[in-house]
């Protein structure tokens, strides 16, 4: 019924519009403006071009300034500040090009509107100015490319040796987080070992995975390089941390990584923004299914000492889930008896299929 009513209203509107339009044509035939070749409307449009330039430009400038703070969320990483500078430098360059070309476009449209008796200037080409306006953009582009390339190689280069390592794994629809534990080595994970408890697919026959611990929030220390290792266990996801200017896809079957150095702790940022509920957020930024929009994690930046304390108090996955560990031990024993060779359980662990580090 609603559908019918809406359709009916639309049809009626169309009919009314058609009748009005017909009326307008009939009156213009009587008034003689119908057949005129270039009439009033030409100068009206020319004026509108100018009006658009002035009011459109003013509206754009106003709304840009008005929203400037909103569109600049706080930045909290070293390369983030560098990127920010490059962003606004580039914006300035393109802003100048934008202003010049748009102004010329609408001014020319207004200024060179049709006038009876005037003739357009036959001007087919001019090699000199064509070379100039090819070379200038090329030089500007070269500078931008060079700056971008320098920064890009630095940001995507190898992480410093002293980096803190944390691994995140995307799944529909949340992020799993794990740390390497005391041995500073992430253990082997294998997607075939995933189940409801062992969400990471820890292969506990690998010794270095025994002290790995998982958390819900990502904790990182301030002022220390952080290397985020990234995995996905189902579809594509993307680790996106806007305040740190970090983004990298999570690709099933291909671990990726990104490193950055946080500059401001969560507490400092809360104080600076006057918002006690502020949190750094990790958003998924590659469409991954129905709840993609709600797939997020919280990042806490601590003072290095606090981070150390927090790290030391975490309990490893194998400690928290003794039954999983027991199952692995049981499996290893069965395999040993099958092979009928008395070897250490750890050594006959099934060759992990997953890529290991």
């Amino acid at each position, binding site marked *: 019924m*609603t*559908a019918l009513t809406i359709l009916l209203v639309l049809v009626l509107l*169309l009919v009314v519009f*058609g009748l009005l*339009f017909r009326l*307008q*044509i009939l009156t213009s035939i009587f008034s003689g403006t119908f057949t005129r070749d270039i009439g009033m*409307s030409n100068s009206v449009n020319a004026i509108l071009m100018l009006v*658009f330039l002035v009011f459109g430009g003013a509206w*754009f400038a106003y709304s*840009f300034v008005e929203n400037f703070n*909103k*569109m*600049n969320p706080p930045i909290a990483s070293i390369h983030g500040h560098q990127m920010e500078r*490059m*962003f606004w430098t*580039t914006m300035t360059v393109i802003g100048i090009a*934008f202003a010049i*070309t748009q102004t010329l*476009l*609408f001014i*020319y*449209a207004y200024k*060179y*509107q*049709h006038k009876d008796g005037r*003739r*357009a*200037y*036959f001007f*087919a080409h001019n090699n000199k100015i064509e070379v100039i306006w*090819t070379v200038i953009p090329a030089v500007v*582009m070269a500078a*931008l*490319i060079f700056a*971008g390339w320098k920064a*890009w*190689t630095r*940001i995507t*280069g190898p992480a410093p040796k002293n980096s803190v390592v944390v691994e995140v794994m995307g799944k529909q629809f949340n992020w799993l987080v794990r740390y390497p534990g005391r041995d500073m080595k992430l253990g082997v994970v294998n997607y075939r070992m995933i189940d*409801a408890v062992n969400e990471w697919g820890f292969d506990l026959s690998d010794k270095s995975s025994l002290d790995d611990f998982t958390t819900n929030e990502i904790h990182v220390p301030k002022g220390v390089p952080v290397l985020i290792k990234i995995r996905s*266990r189902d*579809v594509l996801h993307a680790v*996106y941390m*806007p*305040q740190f200017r*970090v*983004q990298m896809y999570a*690709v*099933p*079957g*291909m671990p990726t990584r990104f490193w950055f150095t946080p500059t401001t702790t969560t507490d400092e940022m809360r104080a600076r923004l006057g918002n006690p509920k502020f949190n750094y*957020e990790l958003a998924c*930024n590659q*469409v991954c*299914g*129905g709840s*993609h*929009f709600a797939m*997020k994690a919280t990042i806490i930046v601590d003072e290095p000492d606090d981070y150390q304390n927090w790290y030391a108090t975490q309990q490893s996955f194998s400690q928290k889930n003794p039954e999983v560990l027991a199952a692995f031990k049981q499996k290893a024993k069965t395999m040993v008896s099958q092979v009928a060779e008395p070897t250490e359980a750890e050594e006959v662990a099934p060759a992990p299929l997953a890529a290991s580090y």
Partner: protein
Amino acid sequence: MSDMAAKPNLSPGVQTQGGIGSAAVPATEHGDHLHHDDHEHHDQHWLWKYVFSQDHKVIAKQFLITGMFWAILGGTLSSLFRLQLGWPEGSMEWLTPFLGKWIQAGKLNPEFYLALVTMHGTIMVFFVLTAGLSGTFSNFLIPLQVGARDMASGFMNMLSYWFFFLSSVIMFSSLFIETGPAAAGWTIYPPLSALPQSIPGSGAGMTLWLVSMVFFIVSQLLGGVNYVTTVINLRTRGMSMSKLPLTIWAFFLTAILGILSFPVLFSAALLLVFDRSFGTSFFLSDIYIAGQALSNQGGSPVLFQHLFWFLGHPEVYIVIMPAMGMVSEILATNARKPIFGYRAMIGSLIGISLLSFVVWAHHMFVTGMNPFLGSVFMFLTLIIAVPSGVKVFNWLATLWRGNIRFTAAMLFGIGFVSLFISGGLTGIILGNATLDIQMHNTYFVVAHFHLVMGSSAFFGLFAGVYHWFPKMFGRMMDEKLGYIHFWLTFIGVYLVFMPMHYVGIAGFPRRYYAWTGFDAFSQFADMNRFISIAAIVAFLGQFIFIFNFFYSIFRGRRATENPWNSTTLEWTTPVLPGHGNWPGEIPTVYRWPYDYSKPGSEVDFIPQNVPYSQTHSSNLPYEQDMAD
């Protein structure tokens, strides 16, 4: 010829009612039987004349009207998801009669939201701006402007449309199936698009998407081969490549891009079909989903992205280059000036075409691809700014000291240049790998490409329709409605996409059903509502154009042979060119297509088929040599 204009040459209602594409195709050949040379088609059944026609002009109109159907649908879908983004807390209960089970308890289903976004992108990029734009105008203008009786193969041309039609029917039917249409984004990245367990749209909806796209690619290739062959082989006497209108250069290069890149999409689609249905692992590896570890090993989702964007990037130039060509033509005609830097315009088109093949991975800077590749692709991508800049400067120089007539087509041409500048410049940010780390997949990207290839290509399409309507239908579109349509759309587009940049700079991700869960993004509620209102109003404004279009087909002012005093060959045909285009001999070409306001000439345009021997007063020295 003048008596023809006076004849009633349209008989509405007599034609076929068969199918979307042909329902409104009017008689184009009625009344000029007596004039043309080609007698074998006289007593054709209407079915062969208007439905399964091999006449390039009829096929062009079929593409145009099918494209318009798709555009309305694509626009409607965008209005639906703009409602969701503008009023995330609002009730959508009133849409239940249309959307049925996709509205649950007054809320839009989030998976259906993704389906809407996916179908909007697919429809607009492929069905409207590829088939509807280049299908219409390449078909219509290539034979008319190069001086040919028809395409090289009329039969293949007909097949091209009907494959497109078939593809359209399949895609359209996918909207109505139980699990919904494809929902993995128009880029259909696997594994999401490969695994029905991950999202319902990747079930039957995705299968139909892939099948439809295979037919679409066949259609594009049949069309493209035809366009290229026609331009190379069927040019009339004197029409050297350096005398071609820029429209033809643009269509020619577009067709070459399509021929070289669409097969790669075909292969990507085929491999995805294998992965989905036959258990291969081209794109799948190490996946645990829905409580089950899949056996697929060793595939790479990133490989798919390489294959997809190898088409996907040239595709955006397939969309924009025909618009560039038509706008060049329209600006020159209505500024009454030669296009500035004709050779530089061709050179920049060729440069853009070549570069378009080596920039695809700028869509993939942060996918985990080797950063060294990122450096290379950043370099190649930012170089494109140079030929694009040359084109903009040349358009500006064409307006400079012109004598501008603001026809509706001219307004859209100027609007095109403005939008192309606005959208193109932000490409300099996104092409920079460093800055793309932050901007990738945010609304900044959405704003960028909607301006530079979405809206601009639409403006090129509108400009083309307003400009060549008289030659298509023998009548004029209403200019006043055209003005209203232009200003409403032009302002609307800026109001929609300028604020979208702000949202994007703040890092708001695209394809988000709602932003309410995130602290950082929830400050843009007002802005999103504003964008939604502007978008919906601008969309509704397009019905002015639809009305104008269909009204003018039947009731518009009658056109003359050359209403815009233009120089190119299509305007030397009768008001409504019949089969074979020219009743007598095909004209011979003597000069380039831009002799507007030439000093010494009495009229302000000299058509291409006027020999130099007739224009002694205006000939340049070297032209005078040719005249003697």
